[in-house]
């Protein structure tokens, strides 16, 4: 086979290099003489290394692949078993098509038109969507609990640091149920609205989990619109 001197940087990748070798040696892509191709491929890689250049890992990976294919093709094969070289053939054909398609595209490329930047119109920000007024009520409800739970702690709440009262989950189970018996449902956040202490809030949360697990209450909706409902008794 003819000796070739290429620079690897000139190739788009291992497939490109292989295709070049195939073309130069007029190799039948459907019946690749894998041993010879491997030999030539390795020569190129070695040349690169001699030149002290970094060989991209993809090139080494392909070398390993070729070695594998070569080994596999030496082994006896079942009749229905595929020629291990076929996978390589497939890869090369695909890449060949890719290159051909790229050439076709290149003939179309024009870059000969210029477009205009969008005109800077004074923006009209006025809101125009139509809403149901009840959304406001819902939003107010959602907003209300928030401040309570997110505002900076009141001075009293620091006393808890000293007295560290532990709030029991049981007491908060009673609290949740009692609230729901009265009301049937309540906004999730509102449940926590008056619970300034962390331990109380945790207890309410745990109580809620327990009640959900025991199918006493149901939590519906998501985010700020989340509602807690008593099960088995719809709100009158």
């Amino acid at each position, binding site marked *: 086979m003819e000796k070739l001197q290429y620079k690897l940087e000139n190739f788009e990748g291992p497939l490109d290099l292989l295709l070049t070798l195939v073309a130069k040696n007029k190799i039948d892509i459907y019946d690749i003489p894998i041993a010879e191709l491997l030999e030539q491929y390795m020569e190129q890689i070695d040349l690169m290394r001699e030149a002290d250049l970094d060989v991209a890992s993809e090139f080494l990976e392909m070398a390993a692949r070729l070695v594998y294919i070569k080994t596999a093709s030496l082994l006896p094969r079942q009749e229905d078993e595929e020629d291990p070289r076929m996978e390589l053939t497939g890869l090369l054909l695909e890449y060949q098509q890719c290159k051909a398609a790229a050439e076709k595209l290149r003939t179309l490329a024009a870059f000969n038109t*210029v*477009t*205009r*930047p*969008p*005109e*800077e*119109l004074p*923006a*009209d*920000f*006025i*809101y*125009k*969507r*139509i*809403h*149901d*007024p*009840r*959304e*406001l*009520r*819902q*939003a*107010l*409800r*959602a*907003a*209300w*609990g*928030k*401040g*309570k*739970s*997110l*505002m900076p702690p009141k001075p009293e709440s620091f006393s808890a640091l000293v007295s560290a009262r532990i709030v029991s989950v049981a007491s908060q189970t009673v*609290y949740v149920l*009692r*609230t729901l018996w*009265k*009301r049937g449902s*309540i*906004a999730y956040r*509102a449940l926590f*609205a*008056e*619970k*300034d202490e962390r331990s*109380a809030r945790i207890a309410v949360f745990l109580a809620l989990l327990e009640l959900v697990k025991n199918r006493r209450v149901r939590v519906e909706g998501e*985010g*700020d619109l989340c509602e807690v409902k008593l099960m088995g008794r719809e*709100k*009158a």
Partner: protein
Amino acid sequence: MRGEADGEGEGVSTEELAGRAEAILFASGEPVALDRIAQVLGVRTAAVEKMVLALQEKYNTPQSGVHLLMLGDSAQFCTNPAFIEPVRAALDLKRNTPLSQAAMEVLAVVAYNQPVTKAFVEQVRGVDCSGVVGSLVQKGLLEERGRLELPGRPLLYGTTENFLRCFQLESIDRLPPPPGEGGQQEQEEGSDDDGEDDGPEQITLDV
């Protein structure tokens, strides 16, 4: 094609020169000095002036979507001002995204308590609301309503006519009764409405 750019106006038809001027004016979003066009086309400024006049005659009709303006010694294409509204509608709709939950909450707090300061809204929601309030003002849903006579003279905010339109309210009195929760604010006006069984007392929590 290449040579022409360095400018010999000769040998090129007047129509083609006008087309080049048109292309240059179109591609630039900004006003282009006639001098500059003359230089590129390799013709006198007076010739460019003529072209621009001819282009104006072609473009500046009431039905045309595009007009050509003279601004001093420059020319600029712009949208026919008569069609600014459909243009806005086509390009601006992105700005009309639905209100976020945060915006809705701020709006609700203001609507039910107006006029209120931003600090009040922030206290209720427990988070900074400057950005949201600003954008609601920009959207024409909130407006400034003077200042509170307190240290710092904070601005007061209220809802607008546009707010009433968006929420299909004839007047601000027609707001749905506020939910009773949270215990303290309900005195304002809401819970007097009968049908609301979530009155404030029902939410009273035992701590």
